């Protein structure tokens, strides 16, 4: 598969993953372009891999980590800009929207590694071994991150008043 064919068919999935990892659609676009830019010059080797999609996801996760390391203040996207993005389809969805908005805020507050594990497990439906390969850690570390993240979410939800 050529680079262009791969980006055309699998690129959108990477953009969606980047939106979840970064919490910011604009930075997600930048990050994906950065990853594809690097992948372009090594495409022959990447495309020969058994699972190029795993390698690209690892590149994306690393690029996101580098972005965070470069910013000491760990800035987050402005709430208004973020809401404007995901509310573009309408505002009359009601309670379900309030619940997912609350959950989204909690997810964004999780430590980066914990959030990455939940995104890869619950959005990408990947197994722990693959997640470990992407994050560069062991499967037991993945399980540990997942357990801590879920505990934190449960605890936070118990203390979040219904809207």
């Amino acid at each position: 598969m050529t680079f262009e064919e791969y980006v055309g068919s699998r690129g959108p999935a990477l953009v969606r993953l980047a939106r979840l990892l970064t919490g910011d659609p604009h930075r997600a676009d930048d990050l994906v372009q950065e990853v594809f830019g690097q992948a372009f010059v090594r495409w022959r080797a990447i495309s020969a891999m058994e699972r190029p999609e795993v390698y690209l996801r690892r590149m994306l996760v690393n690029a996101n980590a580098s972005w965070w390391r470069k910013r000491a203040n760990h800035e987050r996207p402005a709430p208004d800009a973020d809401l404007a993005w995901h509310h573009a389809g309408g505002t009359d969805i009601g309670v379900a929207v309030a619940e997912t908005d609350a959950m989204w805020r909690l997810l964004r507050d999780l430590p980066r590694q914990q959030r990455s594990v939940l995104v890869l497990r619950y959005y990408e439906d990947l197994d722990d071994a693959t997640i470990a390969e992407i994050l560069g850690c062991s499967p037991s570390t993945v399980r540990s991150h997942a357990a801590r993240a879920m505990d934190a979410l449960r605890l936070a939800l118990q203390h979040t008043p219904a809207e």
Partner: protein
Amino acid sequence: MPELDELLRATLDRHAAGEIDRVTLVARATDRGRAVRRRRRTVLTLTAAAVAVLVAAGGTVVVRAVGDGSALRPGAVAPAEVTLPDAGLPGAAIDPAAVGTDPNFVHFAAPAVVAGARHHTWSSTVGYERLEAEIDGGLVYVTIGRDQAAVDQADAMTNLPAVLRREPVPGLWLRVDARDDAYARRVAATLDLERTQRILLPFQLVERPSEIESAYVGFIGDRYAQGGVVLRDTQGGRMEVQAQYARDADGTHERSNYSARGRPAYVYPGQDEVALLGVPHLEVTVRIGKAYEGFGVADADAVLATLNVTDRVERIDTWPSSLTLG
């Protein structure tokens, strides 16, 4: 705690969703990759050496700088390979009420933009019609609609510095987004608002679970890149049928794991996408999952089993003459 799992999945699905323009994604990715490669090759040293050789030989070098505006030439004619057929209907300036009412048509033409574009995409959806192009090293968006708010909403995310808004005839709104005001005005001056083009794709829907809401077709240079239609049912279910150009003669590389009423197909893990196999130079897919919830594999089945697909994607004159049959 199943409720937490469900809420987590719903939250992630919702925040991952949203339109992604594949033509632009591919173009930007290759641009970025080439830039990375250029940097790695320390091109400045090589260029200086080459110029020195040319000057020493008394040669003359003509260089068209990226973004110098020379690709947009009024009166230029778009290549036949990327020219959509004339619909024989009045254009937006003559019948503004028709704009954004039928995804089969775009009620304007832009031959000069198309002729000079590195890539361009036509789209038509409820409320507005649009041309997106990369020309002279920058993106340009031309949008028309019957309502100024709808046109502005369509281009809210373009983030280009210059926006030109006009009402060329009562009831028709035109917006051009470009890198600067002068370029936006130049683009506007080349538009033909008296012509209507028919949006065509290298495939045609025969059986479909609901009506087409929007259609798009994109080209890179003078070659088809991708196009598709979005179907939406009354409950908000969404399905996208898309065909992307593939260099390989047999289309998608995946091995068949499914049969769409006898046609070899591939269901992707997650059951959110089904690809039709064996179509020369095309990857034909139906996306139904994640952001497109509401339809199932059986609906994709019906669409793919009856789809008419051209076997000569490079020849627009061999494509089906309409998006749907009947």
